Each structure stands twice: as structure tokens, then as C-alpha cells.
């Protein structure tokens, strides 16, 4: 009898451990990485070397390619560099070994000063040619750069290179979000002492104050068509969700609760907004039509879900739209994906660190988030299909609240 009980209990332990094992999202046939060889470029060896490094790094970050020697590759890259350092022409050819078919043959003009940009352009074309999916090599990430008690905004290439400061206010600037056309960033700044919502034009360097009501003007997020902004205002007494016209004005209140609403994120079709409300005690994710009305509660557990980010994969993508959140479990912060079928949040980044603030890449497959260990915060990329995390180079002082550009 005792032996029987022991066997049953052992069986139960095995059952429980195996049931929690799967946390990957296998929604794409690109889960199988295509073996790809980068043979490089003939011509100027310095230029060729730098381009080759960028191609290999981008291929690894794409999640859909595996860099292998030519003999093992399904697709092989070759190319040449012509011209001089101020006026280059780079030709890149990718062939499928088995069929001998050329899937990419293209020339790229550039200069030795912007080799990374050139390499990224080639990489995106390579991913498109081999997998049919949209690449992320040319995208950028905006983030909050902490310098002691000062917080400025900055942008960087998606791989952590090319950091550019956006604000020099020696104040606190937070929560950056890109416009869909990539030309503007909206954020909240305390430069006036009070938290104002500001729009900065990345090309003209002009800034305008879009919302400066009493209380909070924060959490601003552009609608997918760029015509509206959802944001948090507490001008009517406590933090509520509003929309406004992106050109300014047209404020409409969406929520009416005694709790605090915050962190709006738009659905891909621009018809709904997911957001955080603590109206029932602890913060959870809710859904509201862009025109207001009754809220629908999305998440129930764990007991703290915040910072929702709704992905907008391209229409021809293998990826489905998903909402990523930051959950608090056991005092630690995890990145989770909300499952609209089961209403559960499935952890995808769950370790001994504090993982917060997910933001989706425009491919709907990668996201960037911040990871804090021993009170040092740095940015990481996550491929939700493979589950692979990539650590971006450390930034002195700390980087947080990332927002992936279009």
C-alpha cells in the first residue's frame, strides 16, 4: 500500500513539473532557423569587414536565420564593394544553394561613414528575400537614460549602437513613444516643474506642449494611424484615460472610475485601447473602445499586471497581435503575454531579475524590455518565437522605459 502511494505521488510530481515547461509561442513557421552563410564582400577589406560583421550580427538577431559555414548553408551571401570611402556602391547577392536561384541581387549606395546603416538595409532585404517576413535591422529604440537624478531621452539603433541624446534639459523626461511614421516622439517632461506631455519632432527639433493640465499628463501613446493620442490625465480629480487629436486639442474622456487608469496601448486596428486600472484594488489590464463606454477586464492573475504593450505585426506576417505585460509575482517582475482565449498571462521572461516595460518591434515578434539586477538596469531584446534574450550593451547610469520605433 505504502509503495503504491509513493508511486502515485512520484507520478504527480512529474506531471506538475512537465505541465509548466512550455512558455514559448510557436506561432510562426520561421521557428526553424534557415541556415545562412555570410561569405562577405570583395573590395576594400576594412569596409568589407565592417559590413560582414553587421550582416552576421543582424542575421543572429533576426531569430529566423542561423549563421553557418557555406557547406552547411541553404542560402549563401556574397558581394562586392566598389568606389571610394566617400562614395561607395555595395552589391549583395544571396543564392539558394539547392536550386541555384538568386533570391536577392541589389546595389546599395553609401559611404564609409554610415556602414552600419548600409549593412542594416542589406540585412532587412536578406530577411525579406529568404523568409518573406519584415526585418528589424533598420529600426530604432527610444529610451530613458538616467544620469543620477536627471533623466533624459535618447534613441539608439535596435542593436544598441549609435546612441543619440534627444533631450538636454537636465530635468526628468520619461515614457517616450514614437509616431507611426517615425518622425516624432511624444513623452512626459518635468521641465516646467509640472509633468507635461510634449511632442518632439526628430527632424526639425521643434517641441510643442500637447497637454499641460493640472495634475498628470502622462502615458501618451499614438494610435496606429497617427491621428490620435491616448494618455492619462488627472485634471478631473484622479488619473483617467483620455484621447486627443494628434494635432492638438479634442480631448475626450474615456474612463470614469475612482481608481487610477494609466498606460494606454492601442489595438492594431485602432478601435480599442488596453490600459491599466487599479479600480478594484491591484492593477490589472482592461479594454475600452476608443470611443469610451464600458470597460472589459482582461487580466485576473497574477495580482499585479501593468505596462501593457499591444503588438502590430504587418498584415502579411505570420505573427498574431499580442499584448505583453509586466507582472509582479513573488515580489519579482516578469514579462508575460496575455492569452485572450484563456485570459491568462503566460510568463516569457521569468528569472531572478526585475523585468519591466515591454515594447514590441514592428515585426510583432521581438520586444525590448528593461532588466534590473542589483539595482542596475539595462535593456534586453526578446524573440518571443524562440524565447531567446539578447543583452544590449550596458549604458552608464541605466536605461529604462524603452519604446521600439516603427
Amino acid at each position, binding site marked *: 500500500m505504502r509503495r503504491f502511494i509513493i508511486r502515485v505521488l512520484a507520478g504527480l510530481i512529474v506531471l506538475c513539473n512537465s505541465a509548466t515547461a512550455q512558455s514559448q509561442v510557436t506561432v510562426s513557421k520561421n521557428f526553424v532557423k534557415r541556415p545562412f552563410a555570410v561569405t562577405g564582400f570583395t573590395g576594400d577589406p576594412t569596409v568589407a569587414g565592417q559590413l560582414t560583421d553587421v550582416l552576421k550580427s543582424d542575421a543572429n538577431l533576426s531569430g529566423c536565420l542561423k549563421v553557418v559555414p557555406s557547406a552547411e548553408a541553404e542560402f549563401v551571401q556574397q558581394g562586392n564593394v566598389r568606389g571610394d570611402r566617400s562614395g561607395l556602391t555595395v552589391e549583395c547577392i544571396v543564392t539558394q544553394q539547392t536550386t541555384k536561384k538568386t533570391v536577392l541581387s541589389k546595389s546599395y549606395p553609401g559611404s564609409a561613414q554610415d556602414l552600419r546603416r548600409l549593412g542594416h538595409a542589406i540585412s532587412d532585404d536578406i530577411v525579406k528575400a529568404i523568409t518573406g517576413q519584415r526585418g528589424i535591422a533598420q529600426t530604432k529604440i527610444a529610451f530613458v537614460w538616467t544620469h543620477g537624478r536627471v533623466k533624459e531621452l535618447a534613441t539608439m539603433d535596435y542593436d544598441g549602437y549609435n546612441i543619440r541624446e534627444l533631450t538636454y534639459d537636465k530635468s526628468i523626461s520619461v515614457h517616450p513613444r514614437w509616431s507611426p511614421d517615425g518622425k516624432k516622439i511624444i513623452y512626459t517632461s518635468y521641465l516646467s516643474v*509640472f509633468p507635461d506631455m510634449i511632442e518632439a519632432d526628430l527632424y526639425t527639433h521643434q517641441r510643442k506642449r500637447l497637454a499641460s493640465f493640472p*495634475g498628470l499628463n*502622462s502615458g501618451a501613446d499614438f494610435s496606429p494611424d497617427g491621428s490620435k493620442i491616448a494618455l492619462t490625465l488627472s485634471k478631473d480629480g484622479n488619473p483617467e484615460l483620455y484621447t486627443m487629436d494628434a494635432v492638438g486639442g479634442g480631448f475626450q474622456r474615456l474612463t470614469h472610475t475612482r481608481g487610477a487608469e494609466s498606460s494606454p496601448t492601442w489595438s492594431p486596428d485602432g478601435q480599442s485601447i488596453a490600459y491599466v486600472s487599479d479600480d478594484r484594488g491591484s492593477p490589472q489590464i482592461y479594454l475600452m473602445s476608443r470611443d469610451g463606454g464600458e470597460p472589459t477586464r482582461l487580466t485576473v492573475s497574477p495580482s499585479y499586471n501593468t505596462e501593457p504593450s499591444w503588438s502590430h505585426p504587418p498584415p502579411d506576417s505570420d505573427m498574431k497581435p499580442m499584448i505583453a505585460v509586466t507582472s509582479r509575482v*513573488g515580489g519579482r*517582475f516578469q514579462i508575460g503575454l496575455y492569452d485572450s482565449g484563456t485570459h491568462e498571462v503566460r510568463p516569457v521572461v521569468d528569472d531572478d531579475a526585475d523585468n519591466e516595460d515591454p515594447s514590441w518591434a514592428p515585426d510583432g515578434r521581438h520586444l525590448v524590455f528593461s532588466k534590473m539586477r542589483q539595482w542596475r538596469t539595462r535593456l534586453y531584446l526578446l524573440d518571443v518565437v524562440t524565447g531567446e534574450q539578447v543583452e544590449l550593451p550596458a549604458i552608464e547610469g541605466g536605461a529604462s522605459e524603452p519604446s521600439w520605433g516603427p
Partner: protein
Amino acid sequence: MRSRFVSHAIILTLVATLGLTGCKNFHWPWQKSHPSDQGGAPGEPPPLTGNGIENGTRPIVTGELPHGQFAPVYFDFDSARVKPSEVSKIEAVASWMKSNSSAKLVVEGHCDERGTAEYNRALGERRAGAAREELVRMGVEAERITTISYGKDRPADPGHDEASWAKNRRCEFSAIKE
């Protein structure tokens, strides 16, 4: 014979229950759940601000807000409730505001460094709102009081322990004479 049947039945029921409810909901007795899994302050009703008490207009401020005139009010983790022990500090502010009827007040809300950035801005705003609500109840005109939330971005104490965190979960009061 019969007791054996009952034991088997109990075990089979256990297995079936686990199978139906899902293993991830099952906690072995030695797995302690973290106190904050309960949400810190579960079921705590939000403060009454937001029922039509518009925020007060911003006073004109040049440079930093003046601090130090009034004692900060401290809050429990995840909570925006004004504790009874803190009420006398708000009374001191109310009393001064009633004696200085031309002054305006800025109430700052802050959080400790735990918790996500944007939600902490909302929680800090609820803390400032709760203090403002108390002041209005004590007879200070609502339009003279405005709020600023800094979330976790302006700690009073840069430390990473309970003592530091307790000092950061606060409201601060700045009086502006216009």
C-alpha cells in the same frame, strides 16, 4: 479490502482534481507565497478624489518647488490610503493654508523604486490626490491645491532597503505665495 478501495479512490480523486485544475495552480505546502502576491493592499477602496473634484490650477513656479516647511506624509506599500497616524501632518498643512488664504499648494506624490514606472506615476498621483482630498475635507478650497506625481523618479532616500523605501512612499507639500 474496503479501506484499500477507499484509499485508492482518494488518490485517484487527487490525481483527477490536479489534472482538471492544472498543475500551475497547485502549491506544495513548503512553497511560501510572497506577501505581495496578494496585491499589497487587496480590496482597498480607492480614494474619493475623482468624483468631480477638479484638480486645482497650477501656480506659477520658478525654479524648484520649496520643500521643508511641512512634514512629508508617508504611505504603506502599494497603498494610497492616508493612515490615521499621518492625519495630524495634513491638519498642520490645512491650518496654515486657512491662515494664508492667498497661498496655493502643490502636493507631490511619490513611490518607492519597486513597481513599474508608469503605474507608479499613477499611484503617486493617487497618493497626492488622497492628501488633497483630506485637505479639502478639512476646509481648504480645492482650487488652491494642485498635484504632481513623480512616480519613483525622485526618491528622498537613494537606498535599496525597507528603511529607504518607507521614506520614499510619501507626499510632500509646497506652499506658493503668488
